[in-house]
């Protein structure tokens, strides 16, 4: 079965328009990584303006069009474009496609013991729809007025009266949402229907559980944003007033619109998606971390069932907290009390997961491999990100902190050193399975330590800046006196960001060189237990040589009386 049936297929069918989940997964991963890097580049440009307001960008400045930079000095419009697109690209084109599209596609069929996804053609389509969405977003930079500039949240009425780039943003989003829907339906059906014989739900690796919950969130939370996107598109293209209040005055003139709309409607629909979206970002990361920790501590995950129940509860509760992003919109105290309570409740399952993962380290014989380093670093980083979120969930503190750099620091700790570190861990961990070669451990560790230092250099000072009251979307942070005092921190952050970029060079080189020259990997180089390691390396078309059967739970490491310290799921009897 593994003998390549696709051998005789032409190149474009085998690697470009492929229906094989592994190829689609790799496509998603590579595209996602490229977009992550691109989104990071946008941010590095912004960091110049923030550290050295209105000073010309040295050397690079000359390559920019005069509508974006005048003799190297960034224009406010361009700054806004960079900010809006950084958020959009990182979330919708980088992390989600990488976590759900890349890792989900590659690993879900392997870990449940399936030959492919349930709907292979739909799978291919979901990638290409995502790709089109990405192209539309990318192309919007080359519009006469540039790309969207109303922030990744695109709040109306500002976004409705914004430039043409916003229309592209909305159309791009419709494509990305459609792609996510197709992909997540595929993942759910694959998990529920194509699991191997004996693989009951409570024998799933935690990664599978996290993908299952994530996919349900995508199926149920994304459509309301699609609806909101369509309504905003109508506002912009057909002149409706879904989000436009009556009598809006823009630059001294009353806007010609029928009026009667409600800008808050957008915020409700947007956050109805965007809060579950946070868990779409974090759950797959937790799944990856759990896999890597079990394998590298050589012992079962502590409280596996508790992890599963927490993930499900987290998914469910994530629908009930969205309005904590909107405390400052004049909501009644009754409503805000409700959302403060739900917000405090939702932190409980996150803490359970984090605690269980920390306790998993207890008494393990830890192998400090590169993926394990990233996975261990995920724990305190996500912890900081999560705990700093609590003050934002309480109105009294949120009043002061809302829309400041504190918020930026908070959610970046969750997503950047949290999720992205977990994704790096996943890349290092599964690289041998995908390519048949290992990545260099030495350069991996260099990459880890440099990234770890600089990423904290970026986000830790943001908390101080936020507490000092610096607003998150300021073009010139020295504009107000209270910003001047903390301006040196901006310089620290900017240098950290640029150094972080340099710290990715070992990763990029390691990644590409290892594909061709890395140490050859065996089928199960980490001596792990889950099903993906039961395939040949790299897995051929159809994945498994013989249909796998599952005899035990996912994390049976160091079973007393066993010959080895790992007992793979697919082997019968004590191994």
């Amino acid at each position, binding site marked *: 079965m593994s003998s390549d049936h696709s051998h005789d297929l032409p190149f474009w069918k085998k690697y470009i328009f492929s229906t094989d989940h592994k190829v689609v997964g790799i496509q998603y991963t590579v595209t996602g990584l490229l977009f992550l890097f691109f989104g990071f580049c946008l941010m590095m440009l912004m960091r110049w303006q923030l550290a050295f307001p209105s000073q010309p960008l040295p050397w690079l400045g000359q390559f920019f069009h005069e509508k974006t930079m005048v003799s190297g000095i960034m224009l406010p419009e361009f700054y806004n474009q960079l900010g809006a697109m950084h958020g959009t690209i990182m979330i919708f084109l980088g992390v989600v496609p990488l976590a759900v599209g890349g890792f989900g596609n590659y690993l879900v069929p392997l870990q449940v013991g399936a030959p492919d996804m349930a709907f292979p053609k739909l799978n291919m389509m979901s990638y290409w729809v995502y790709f089109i969405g990405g192209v539309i977003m990318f192309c919007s930079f080359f519009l006469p007025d540039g790309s969207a500039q109303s922030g990744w949240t695109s709040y109306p009425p500002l976004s409705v009266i914004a430039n043409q780039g916003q229309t592209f943003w909305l159309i791009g989003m419709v494509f990305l949402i459609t792609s996510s829907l197709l992909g997540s339906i595929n993942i759910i059906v694959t998990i*529920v229907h194509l699991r191997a014989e004996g693989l009951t739900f409570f024998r799933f690796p935690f990664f599978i559980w996290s993908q299952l919950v994530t996919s*349900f969130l995508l199926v*149920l939370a994304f459509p*309301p944003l699609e609806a909101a996107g369509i309504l905003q598109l109508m506002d912009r293209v057909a002149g409706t007033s879904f989000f436009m209040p009556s009598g809006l005055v823009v630059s001294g003139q009353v806007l010609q619109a029928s009026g009667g709309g409600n800008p*808050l409607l957008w915020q*409700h*629909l947007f956050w*109805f998606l965007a809060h579950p979206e946070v868990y779409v970002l974090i759950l797959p990361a937790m799944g990856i971390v759990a896999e890597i920790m079990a394998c590298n501590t050589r012992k079962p995950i502590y409280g596996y069932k508790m992890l599963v129940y927490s993930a499900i509860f987290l998914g469910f509760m994530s*629908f*009930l907290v969205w*309005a904590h992003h909107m405390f400052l919109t*004049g*909501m*009644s105290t009754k*409503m805000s009390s409700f959302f403060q309570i739900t917000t405090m409740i939702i932190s409980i399952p996150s803490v359970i997961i984090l605690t269980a993962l920390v306790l998993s380290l207890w008494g393990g014989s830890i192998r400090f491999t590169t993926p394990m380093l990233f996975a261990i670093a995920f724990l305190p980083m996500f912890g900081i990100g999560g705990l700093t979120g609590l003050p934002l969930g309480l109105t009294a503190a949120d009043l002061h902190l809302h829309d400041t750099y504190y918020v930026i620091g908070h959610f970046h700790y969750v997503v950047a050193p949290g999720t992205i570190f977990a994704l790096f861990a996943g890349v290092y961990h599964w690289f041998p399975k995908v390519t048949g070669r290992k990545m260099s451990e030495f350069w991996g560790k260099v990459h880890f330590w440099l990234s770890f230092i600089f990423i904290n250099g970026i986000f830790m000072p943001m908390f101080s800046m936020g507490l000092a009251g610096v607003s998150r979307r300021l073009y010139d942070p020295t504009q107000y006196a209270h910003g001047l005092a903390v301006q040196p921190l901006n310089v620290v952050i900017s240098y950290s960001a640029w150094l972080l970029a340099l710290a990715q060079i070992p990763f990029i080189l390691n990644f590409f060189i290892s594909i061709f020259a890395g140490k050859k990997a065996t089928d199960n180089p980490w001596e792990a237990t889950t099903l993906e390691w039961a395939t040949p390396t790299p897995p051929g078309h159809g994945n498994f040589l013989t249909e796998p059967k599952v005899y035990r739970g996912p994390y049976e490491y160091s079973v007393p009386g066993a010959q080895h310290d790992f007992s793979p799921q697919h082997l019968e009897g004590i191994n």
Partner: protein
Amino acid sequence: MSHSEAEIRKHVRVYITVFIALAVLTIATVLASYFHLPLKQAITLALFIASIKATLVAAYFMHLISENKVIHSILLLTGFFFLLLLLLPAMR
């Protein structure tokens, strides 16, 4: 689905009955709208009839009445979040 022939013939009779019921309910809701009831009653009545029609379509045409538990649970979950979404205008 593997249904026996007799079963399907029975189904067809049900489909026709449901169709007639749907047609009658459509006419009823249109006629009711000509009475110009007060807004609250009008909305309640119209939504009530629409819900009956929707239930008929979902139960018989979409076979939900004999569908498996997994589909029911997905719809139950969706229904909960759908209601939450409809409650959204009340949040201010």
